[in-house]
Each structure stands twice: as C-alpha cells, then as structure tokens.
C-alpha cells in the first residue's frame, strides 16, 4: 500500500514538474513576443537604391557571449541566470579532456535578427571563447542557413593588458566597411570607430536591444564609411598610446 502511494506520488510530482517547465517556457515565450518587429523588405526610393549600388557591402562582426547568447555550465560559481530558467539549447564540449555541458540562452529575437541582417551584411562571428565552444554555438545559431560561415575564435584574438581584443584588420583590411557588435568595450579597444555598443544580456526575456538595432543597421548600409556614424561612439575606451610596464 505504501509502495503504491509512493508510486502515485512520484507520478504526480513528475507530471507537476512537466507542467511547471511547460508553463515557464510558455510564459517566457510570451514575454519575448513582440508584435512590432521590422519589415526586412522596406522599399527604397530611386535615390537610395542608386546609393546602395554605389557603396560597398559591409561586414558585420558579431560577438557571441552576452551579445547574442548567454551560457552557463554546472560548475559555475556565480549564478547569472535564475535557477529553473529553461535554456534554449544545450551543447556538450570537451575541454581539456573534461566533458562540460553548457546551457545556452538565446537573446530575444536573435533568430529574426540574424535572418534579417544576413540579407544586408556579410556576417562574421568573432568570439573570445574557445573554438570548440564557439563552433557549436555558431552552428546552432546558424540553423543550417549558412549565414555564419566566417568564424574567429580565441586564437585569433590579441592578448592585451585588459584582456582579449579583436583585430578587425585581420578580417578585412578596409576599415571603412567593417563594424563590430560587442557588449565589451575592451574587445574593440583598438578600433573604437568601428564599434556598435550593445548592453550585456543575461536572461531578461523582455530585452529588445536586437530589434532596436535593426533600423540602425538598415540605415548604416547607405554610408560610404561606417566611421562617419560610428566614430561618435561615446562608450569606447580611450585608445592606449603606449603601455608602460613598471
């Protein structure tokens, strides 16, 4: 009799957990839902059409962590995501012969953002994370569309005093047609005039920073030099002229 009651209780507990998880996913999806998004095929006037044919197609460098996604694993000490938050996907990578499971949360509207921006720009993924992790995340964000083919990882970064920095001239020598979207000003310290700052994201389902950037990136296509607009960035760190060691 006790065994039967225990079985029934376990079954009910499992059922309740399933509905709890389903409710969390549904409520999170509803929080993420935005009615007003962006039309990717807004028609252009003849003047802007001619302008678009004149200027070059630009390159948009995308960071991953805290910009498009946020990930954590079981061994992390500081909890940046509330426990119980359902992750969008999980990846398993082997780091130094230890298998690590990452729970990855996608920033709201990242899939829509990538599908729209890939029509306007050549997309490049540049992350300071390791290649085995960055490749898995980029594959999941790509979803087989082939829009994130060019990838750069930690070995392509430059080790500076304050951390890793990303060399944009290694991606394309012409700096007038390349811009980087990153949450960390230290990453683009050497190229402050090519940066689009974005706040860091951890788990807020109401975040609309990627949707905010869509009209901005649409209009940025029509510049002959992206630095005409991006050089007005106030959040860039001052470039260090010379690093002195004492």
């Amino acid at each position, binding site marked *: 009799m006790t065994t039967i009651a225990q079985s029934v209780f376990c079954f009910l507990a499992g059922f309740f957990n399933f509905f709890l998880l389903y409710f969390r996913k549904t409520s999170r999806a509803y929080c993420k839902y935005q009615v007003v998004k962006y039309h990717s095929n807004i028609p252009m006037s003849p003047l802007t059409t001619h302008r678009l044919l004149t200027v070059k197609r630009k390159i948009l460098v995308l960071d991953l962590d805290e910009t498009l996604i946020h990930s954590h694993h079981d061994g992390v000490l500081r909890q940046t995501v509330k426990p119980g938050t359902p992750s969008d996907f999980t990846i398993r990578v082997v780091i130094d012969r230890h298998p690590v499971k990452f729970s990855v949360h996608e920033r709201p509207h990242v899939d829509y953002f990538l599908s729209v921006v890939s029509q306007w720009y050549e997309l490049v993924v540049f992350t300071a994370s390791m290649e085995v992790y960055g490749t898995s995340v980029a594959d999941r964000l790509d979803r087989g569309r082939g829009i994130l083919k060019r990838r750069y990882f930690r070995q392509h970064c430059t080790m500076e005093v304050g951390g890793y920095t990303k060399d944009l001239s290694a991606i394309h020598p012409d700096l007038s047609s390349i811009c980087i979207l990153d949450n960390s000003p230290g990453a683009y310290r050497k190229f402050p005039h090519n940066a689009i700052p974005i706040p860091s994201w951890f788990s807020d389902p109401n975040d609309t920073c990627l*949707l905010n950037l869509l*009209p901005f990136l649409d209009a940025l296509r029509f510049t002959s030099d992206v630095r005409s*607009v991006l050089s007005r*960035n*106030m959040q860039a760190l001052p470039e260090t002229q010379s690093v002195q060691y004492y």
Partner: protein
Amino acid sequence: MAIQARRMPEDPSTACEDLKFFEKRLTEVITYMGPTCTRWRIAIVIFAVLVGVIGSKYFANEKIEIFQIPMIDMFLTTHLDFTLCFFVGLLLFAVFGVHRRIVAPTIVARRCRDALSPFSLSCDHNGKLIVKPAVRNSAP
C-alpha cells in the same frame, strides 16, 4: 606609426553625406509603417463600433425575459453575436496585438532613439536625425 596610420583623418564632406543618406533611410523606414498602421486603426475603429452596437442592443432591451436554458445554449443561440465579438476581440488584442500595431511608427522611432543614443544622435517621430555634439572624454 602604425597606430597613427589607423586613425585616418575624417573627411567632413564624406561624413556629412553619409549622415544624410543615413537619415534618408531612417525616414523611409518610419514612413513606410504609416499605411499599415492606418489599416490597423481602421480595424480597431470598426471593432469598437461593433462592440457599441451589440452593447446598445442589450441596454435598449426593455423586456427582460427569463428562461430556464443552459448556459451553452444561451451563448450559442441568443447571444451568438456577443460570443463572436468576445472571441474576435481576444484574437485582435491578445494574438495580433492590435493595440501596439496602431502605434508601430512610434515604437520603431523609440527603438531608433535607443540605438542611436550611444552615438550622440537622436531622431524625431518622423525619422529626422538630431545631431548632438559628440562628447567624449579626451584624456590628456
């Protein structure tokens, strides 16, 4: 020398022309949403009129006849218009979010302002660019 080579002097006329085309595209984007917004406004006005008509029918009804009928039958027969109106309203506001679509240009303009604020730029509700002086902490 390499550091100085990267910091190219900006051509003011090129920057000015770029900002003009930047502004032109922003204006096109926000102007494009006008007709769609107007259609949604017409839809919501029609819905409000229908609600008013159906509501007034019940208020104008002087004789209140009380019958012993099940609730389901009441909603499906005598109050079919109310039921349909309720579900259409639920569809419009909860699924289509019509209360946000009618102010879509304002929402997009606010998003543009949020995206432009790190660059000392702003825009009005039509997408016209507002250039503020670029203040940066120039360390000596």
